[in-house]
């Protein structure tokens, strides 16, 4: 298994816009990229995790203005089915050049949809930029609520940010309090489907990014496809991002590789375990 996937370049980067960085999760790579691509006409809209009808519940949305893209900044650690609006983006919003952000599994879904576009007539050829975000696991809304309200003792209405890092689950409140619990406690609440996931750094995205590997406020960025490469170069040239070579950065790619290997090895074992979970019977393996 290829732990980090194919990529043309890897850098540490962050947005040069303080406005974007204000509410972004890490280096504002996703938001910075979409706003730039929208302004340059590379995309005419982007599928992002917009605000939902309950606190911290993301709602997939087709953003067509920089303001809407900015409003969707930051990670919500629960499921946002971004692929669910891909047909709407083309049919209802009339987009010809669609941007989409997604977890590795969502980017896998996108590539499968492009190769086997069953039921997505005239949609999949309109994908102009797929931004992937690293992902170790995700939670249902109810699981996230359980973690934040029950374990961290923070009301979702006063939650400012959640983060996973340094072996802990962090909940920051609007009034400046910080609550943290060992990540271990959250494991049982993970989405079951994540336990067979064999991708950590969105290997099939045009560009993928995450916090791991780089200092706080910065992001690790893999530039992967030919399309991603050409857009990334233009954006850096236009001064949208400041970048540093990943080689000199601590903890750098070593940590990314370590976490990717841990995730994929563990989940590969789970796929095998599932196959013999019963007595002479097992569960389905989706990977053929």
């Amino acid at each position, binding site marked *: 298994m290829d732990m980090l996937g194919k990529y043309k370049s890897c850098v540490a980067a962050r947005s040069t816009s303080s406005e974007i960085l204000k509410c972004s999760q890490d280096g504002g790579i996703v938001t910075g990229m979409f706003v730039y691509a929208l302004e340059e006409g590379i995309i005419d809209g982007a599928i992002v995790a917009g605000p939902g009808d309950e606190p911290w519940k993301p709602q997939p949305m087709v953003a067509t203005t920089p303001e809407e893209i900015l409003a969707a900044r930051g990670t919500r650690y629960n499921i946002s*089915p971004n*692929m*669910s609006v891909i047909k709407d983006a083309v049919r209802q919003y009339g987009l010809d050049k669609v941007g989409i952000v997604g977890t590795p599994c969502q980017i896998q879904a996108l590539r499968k949809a492009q190769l086997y576009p069953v*039921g997505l007539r005239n949609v999949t050829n309109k994908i102009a930029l797929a931004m992937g975000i690293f992902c170790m696991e995700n939670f249902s809304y109810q699981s996230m609520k359980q973690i934040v309200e029950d374990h961290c003792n923070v009301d979702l209405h006063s939650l400012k940010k959640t983060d996973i890092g340094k072996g802990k689950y962090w909940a920051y409140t609007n009034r400046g309090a910080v609550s943290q619990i060992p990540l271990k406690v959250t494991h049982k609440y993970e989405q079951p489907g994540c336990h067979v*996931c064999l991708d950590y750094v969105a290997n099939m995205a045009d560009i993928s990014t995450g916090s791991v590997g780089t200092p706080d406020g910065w992001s690790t960025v893999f530039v992967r496809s030919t399309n991603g490469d050409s857009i990334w170069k233009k954006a850096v040239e236009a001064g949208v991002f400041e970048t540093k070579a990943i080689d000199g950065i601590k903890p750098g790619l070593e940590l990314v590789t370590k976490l990717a290997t841990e995730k994929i090895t563990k989940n590969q074992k789970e796929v095998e375990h599932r196959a013999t979970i019963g007595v002479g019977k097992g569960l389905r393996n*989706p990977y053929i």
Partner: protein
Amino acid sequence: MSNKITLGHVHMSGCTGCCVSIADTFQGLFTLLDNYADLVYSLTLADVRHIPKMDVALVEGSVCLQDELSIEEIKETREKATVVVALGGCAAYGNITRFSRGGQWNQPQHESFVPISKLIDVDVYIPGCAPCPEVIRNVAVMAYLLLKGNDAQKKLATAYLSPLMALAKDGSRIESDSEACGCDIMLKVVNQGLCMGCGTCAASCPVFAISMEYGKPNIDREMCIKCGACYSSCPRSFFSFDVCGDYENILGAITAAMNPGGN
């Protein structure tokens, strides 16, 4: 071009929507016919009365058990075609014809409709209602590479087609447990602990029977027409890292194949 494959469109009980989808590849159909395939049989598009020998038969529609000619023709299709493709939800899964109880004008006795795989072995499934022109195009190019390509192309085509062949193989089993409806998403993905909430199933449903509730598919079974699109598009129904990971090259190769002049 002598190196072309021969292709036929066999019309069973379907609405001709699949046939329209074949034609709806814009100029794609002409490119296919110019370079890769001769259309040797098609009630709508070619003036040929009897099912000839052919490399690939694209079968549209389910089989009506009260229509003897249909039964004869589907059996003949199996005899004459090297590769039988169930094109679209009706041929593959029965689709909306599954709801028929007869009584309709002007053949009220036509009551029982089954997917073609209940009567013959089928090699490839293309689910969906109507099947997407792009997936028909991709399968057509891959079928050509499988039959006429070099070794590397054959390998790629096999890898690409094998999940669609596996769907056909499953459907062709007498005791197949495929519901071919939104239920498959529940039975084979969610119930198996595989769903991760991407929402592709919801986007793929032609009748909007699937909504995402708290990150998981919720299926309105009364709406579902049993086309099979949701399950086959779900990345957790089947997923090949070799094929999907090579998406850039494969999509590039398909585009190049459909654009032989290079413009």
